[in-house]
């Protein structure tokens, strides 16, 4: 993981999210209040715009700037959760040394753990954590395993399955939880956007 990797991922994710924005917006209008997609898009735009400011910075500083930008520029649940994710990654030790695949996995795992604590949500509650927690568990298996390309294909699969599994869940956290039975039958918008992010990053790592 490097600063240029972060910037190129942000750009690819922005493209994928934009392509799927109509779908996510509709999902959120069905069971939320419709702000999720705008928050995600605003956040990605802010991060992409940081390119000139962070491209020559050490990784820890760049992650910290991204965290502050995300935390102060997005708002809503997404801002707090993704801000927490980057803040935690920025606090990882030894970021001045080479960050290899295993180290990157560890950083992402600790970031997702912090998101879970901030949102107090677990698997099965119809939120983005339904995608992120299983992905984090899989990454934990993959690190220190030489065959990470095969493993990342499994991560892509897990993310998609877990995203789809939110469709028939009752929500117990977030805006959708106020709906009870009426939230059933709709995929959680946060789970969908998280799955798209995971999908984009994994494919790019596999193809490089």
């Amino acid at each position, binding site marked *: 993981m490097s600063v240029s990797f972060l910037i190129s991922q942000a750009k690819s994710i922005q493209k994928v999210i934009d392509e799927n924005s109509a779908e996510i*917006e509709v999902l959120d*209008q069905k069971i*939320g*209040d*419709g*702000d999720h997609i*705008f*928050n995600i898009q*605003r956040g990605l735009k802010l991060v992409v715009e940081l390119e000139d400011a962070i491209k020559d910075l050490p990784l820890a500083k760049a992650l910290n700037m991204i965290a*502050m930008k995300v*935390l*102060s*520029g*997005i*708002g*809503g*649940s*997404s*801002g*707090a*959760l993704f*801000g*927490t994710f980057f803040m935690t990654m920025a606090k990882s030790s030894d970021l001045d040394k080479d960050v290899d695949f295993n180290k990157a996995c560890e950083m992402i795992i600790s970031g997702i753990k912090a998101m879970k604590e*901030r*949102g107090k949500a677990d698997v099965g509650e119809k939120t983005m954590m339904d995608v992120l927690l299983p992905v984090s568990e899989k990454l934990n298996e993959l690190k220190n395993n030489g065959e990470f390309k095969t493993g990342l294909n499994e991560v892509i699969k897990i993310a998609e399955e877990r995203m789809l599994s939110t469709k028939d869940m*009752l*929500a*117990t*956290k*977030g*805006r959708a*939880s*106020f*709906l*009870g039975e*009426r939230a059933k039958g709709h995929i959680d918008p946060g789970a969908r956007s998280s799955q798209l992010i995971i999908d984009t990053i994994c494919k790019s790592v596999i193809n490089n």
Partner: protein
Amino acid sequence: MKKFINNNDDFLKESLTGFGKAHSDIINVNLDPSFVSRKNKTKDGKVSLISGGGSGHEPMHGGFVGHGMLDAACPGFVFSAPTPDQMQAAAEHVDSGAGVLFIVKNYSGDIMNFEMGAEMYSGKNDSIITNDDVAVEDSTFTTGRRGVAATVLVEKIVGSLAEHNGSLEECKKLGEKVNKNAGTMGVAFTSCTVPAAGKPTFDIGDDEMEFGVGIHGEPGRKREKIQPSKTIVGNILEAILDNLKPEKNEKNLLFVNGMGGTPLTELYLVYEDACQILQSKGVEVTKSLVGNYCTSLEMQGASITLLKCDDEILKHWDAPVHTAAMRWGM
């Protein structure tokens, strides 16, 4: 979408700037990070009250900054929780050393961002969470009830106690009592349109209403055919009374709140219907509030809040207040 708007990116900034100019005798508007604060510095020893939330609910919360109510308000983007740096900056700006009480509506995004703001602020602080919406069943399986219109009452009543030198602990205790004593439920006839979305948040038929709607247009208990006001008001009150169970001869405040698109004429009709129904049930109404205080952009609809009042609550309700949206006694 028909709105007074120049471009979406500047929507909130332009509105806030105008708010600041229109009420420059009472408040200041700070941009980047955005917060509204009192024109006059918080007096020494007075606990500071800070609230906030997504924009689109005006006059909540910026319209309640001023003597007898809030010290600062942090507006987020339309219907999105504000960010932690806003709360931190507002707290640093207004705290006179007596501590800060954050008043937060029970929504995941608001809770998380206020929590982070409180962690980032080094001064003494505490929080209260409002959750007065009886449309949502309170159970261990949900985030809990939503915080809606009773937040206005909490801000007014605790604001008075803070003005009368109540400590941080006393202010929190009173705020929790007001929240516990209040129940709210709303009905929507039309959707609202978030500027960034450009189209209505939900589809609803000309002859339909959403019973138990949330203040962001979130679906409520059920979608029904529209009914006469008396029937709608009766159903809302039934849900509230079921929850609050006021004692006979207990004093109550009746608050009819417009969602933004319903004229005052109708809100007063709702108030009349509610008074009659409550009287027939032996529920005494001693205080009133009618108007657009906790809105959902241009949504047509209304919510009713009932607040059980003891002497302490009544005293602080009547105390002088001078804000952009609420003013009496001074």
